[in-house]
């Protein structure tokens, strides 16, 4: 029944995490930065599920329950993060993350 190599799952997870980090670090649009964080969260969830299938018996459920909590935390994070985007965009009328540099001086 199980025909998937666990190494391939972890490989996909690492690649997606790297891709999300590239999006966070390279894009300047503030929405794309938030979406890169979401991709990284998804990659870690996939890693949890992939490793949980290697545990025996009832322990294999524990790794499948943790992503449920991660998804709830991600919902709270998106809620507060988007409210902060609305808050800081109101004064500047831009979504370029390089324009929000007041704390530098």
């Amino acid at each position: 029944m199980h025909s998937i190599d666990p190494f391939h799952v972890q490989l996909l997870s690492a690649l997606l995490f790297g891709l999300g980090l590239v999006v966070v670090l390279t894009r300047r649009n503030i929405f794309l930065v938030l979406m890169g964080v979401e991709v990284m969260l998804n990659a870690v969830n996939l890693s949890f599920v992939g490793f949980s299938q290697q545990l025996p018996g009832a322990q294999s459920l524990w790794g499948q329950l943790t992503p449920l909590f991660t998804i709830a935390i991600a919902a709270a994070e998106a809620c507060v993060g988007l409210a902060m985007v609305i808050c800081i965009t109101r004064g500047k009328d831009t979504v370029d993350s390089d324009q929000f540099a007041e704390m530098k001086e």
Partner: protein
Amino acid sequence: MFHSLDHLLGSAYFTLFALASLLCGGGLLLSKHPINGAIYLIGVMLSLSGIYALLGSPFLGVIQVLVYAGAIMMLVVFVIMVLNQARDHRVPRFDGFSIVGAIFPIALAAMVVKTLAFADASTIDPAAVRGEIAPVAATMFDLTPAGPGYYLLFELIGVLLLVAVVAAVMLAKRHLDSPAAPAAPAEGDHAQH
């Protein structure tokens, strides 16, 4: 024979979903408008939910579609459309720092892959529990003292979501002392007279 066919189909579906998620991730990286990026991100989440179902966690796959691709991405798309006046086409996609910034994630992913490749070969346990609704609920709401105690986390997540809603309303309000509705102070004045 059917076993080998199942084997082949599982690998084919996994390859399909993995390629779809990576391609959608690349589209997110190169997208011009954030709305396009949001659509690509939904593609990443849908293909990952397919992989969860293939790996034996169908309930998690359903929650991924409902909460992530449904609720969270709806919020993201809604805010992008609300702030569409903020002329995001002036923002360049990449700048000089981007080339430097791309090196470190690639190095990190390469190190993780190298560590995994040199680790002991791991296999999926055939006795692993398939995460359908009944076993997930039985584990999460296991109230016995010897249980894992996930129900406490469940309650705490509820409090956290409530706090996040209050914080979002406080942050997104235009003025902190403004009334919720324009009619409210008139009624207050009327009551004082």
